[in-house]
């Protein structure tokens, strides 16, 4: 249970930092740490990790942010599934891969949430504005992708060191 708890803790911390600090950045846009933690874990953990973590992250975001429950759950779930599916395709240790993945994931979150909002009739969406603002957030996330990935990896390594006799997979899937 170490790894799921650890990832949940990172998501929780990302959500808290997003809400308490990044939301105060007076730029009109703020990076999304939750999605960065999500893709960092999903790309290395695969489809099940991505799906479960995506649903959890989205639900957390829905609960904490006050959006209709399910909107971000769906969006982050899609991102988690997509990132997890690409585990074998993406080498996250390459220099620009985390940034590009983060940018793509950010755009995907915006498109899915925008689509859900349109389909459900919650609001009208100005797609050009949405794409513009999403591109800015995607740029911010791209910059932060590598540090967050390093943080996730570092936390996982730290967690592994506490139980050197057991492989990480054993503790995750036992």
């Amino acid at each position, binding site marked *: 249970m170490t790894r799921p708890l650890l990832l949940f803790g990172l998501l929780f911390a990302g959500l808290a930092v997003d809400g*308490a600090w990044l939301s105060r950045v007076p730029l009109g846009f703020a990076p999304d740490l939750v999605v960065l933690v999500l893709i960092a874990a999903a790309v290395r953990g695969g*489809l*099940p990790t991505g799906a479960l973590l995506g649903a959890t992250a989205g639900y957390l975001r829905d609960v904490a942010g006050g959006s*209709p429950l*399910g909107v971000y759950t769906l969006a982050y779930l899609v991102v988690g599934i997509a990132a997890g599916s690409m585990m074998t395709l993406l080498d996250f240790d390459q220099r620009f891969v985390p940034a590009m993945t983060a940018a793509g994931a950010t755009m995907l979150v915006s498109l899915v949430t925008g689509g859900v909002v349109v389909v*459900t*009739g919650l609001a009208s969406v100005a797609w050009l504005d949405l794409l513009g603002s999403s591109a800015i957030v995607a740029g911010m996330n791209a910059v932060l992708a590598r540090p967050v990935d390093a943080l996730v990896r570092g936390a996982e390594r730290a967690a592994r060191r506490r139980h050197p006799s057991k492989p990480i997979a054993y503790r995750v899937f036992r």
Partner: protein
Amino acid sequence: MRGRIALAGVLLAAALMLVTLQVRQPEQRAVGPVGATLLAALGPAQSGLSRVSDSVARLWRLYTDIGRLRVENTRLREDVERLGQEVARLREQAQATQRLEKLLDFRTATGGRAIGARVIGRDTSQWFAVILVDRGSRDGVRRNDPVVAAEGLVGRVLTVSPTTSQVLLITDARSAVGVVLQQSREAGVVEGLGQAVVRLKYLSRAREIPIGAVVITSGLTSLFPRGLPVGTVVSLVREQGAIYQEATVAPSVNLDHLEEVLILAEGRSDR
């Protein structure tokens, strides 16, 4: 692989169902016990983080305020010193109404531009009393301009560079200032001794000089305007056979702790 796809499918279906339910019944948005627990945990975490960021913001504001207050403080000090000079000048004017015409000249002489300057250096030798200030010829400072503080005369400009000036303090052995005793109008010359006190020379032996007598500039030389406080008499020196008597004068300005001074750029009586 099928199991993983099935897991993703189930989660997608659950999310879609959740969205559908919520959109149909938005007024019944209920996060449930899990969501409530998450919110309960998230609240203190975000509150703590907010406090940290608020503290940082407060520190930053404090830092910027200090900078602003420093600037304001410097300006106010300049104002205080300028007003101190104004007060000293007006007192002198009140005491000697019979010399109105001369005092008018004095007011003209000292009422000119005063340049506030910060002391940025000090001669470290024990023999010379020279300070370095951060104003120079670019600011209009000229050699021999009088330099004062709120309490009185500091000295005169010795050398001028474009951005700085050296000021010869009245305690330097090379300094000599024409003075009068404020009450008796007895004239003399204050010379530096290279010590904390200065020597008042060429006082008539026939006159009684009281301890505590206030010494002010006489304006008889071209360097200093009349009426600037120089110091107070702390002791008398009457040597046998000497034509004159002398006095030890404590400068009215604490020259060891000068931080800001005023340069009377148009204060010399030869201008």
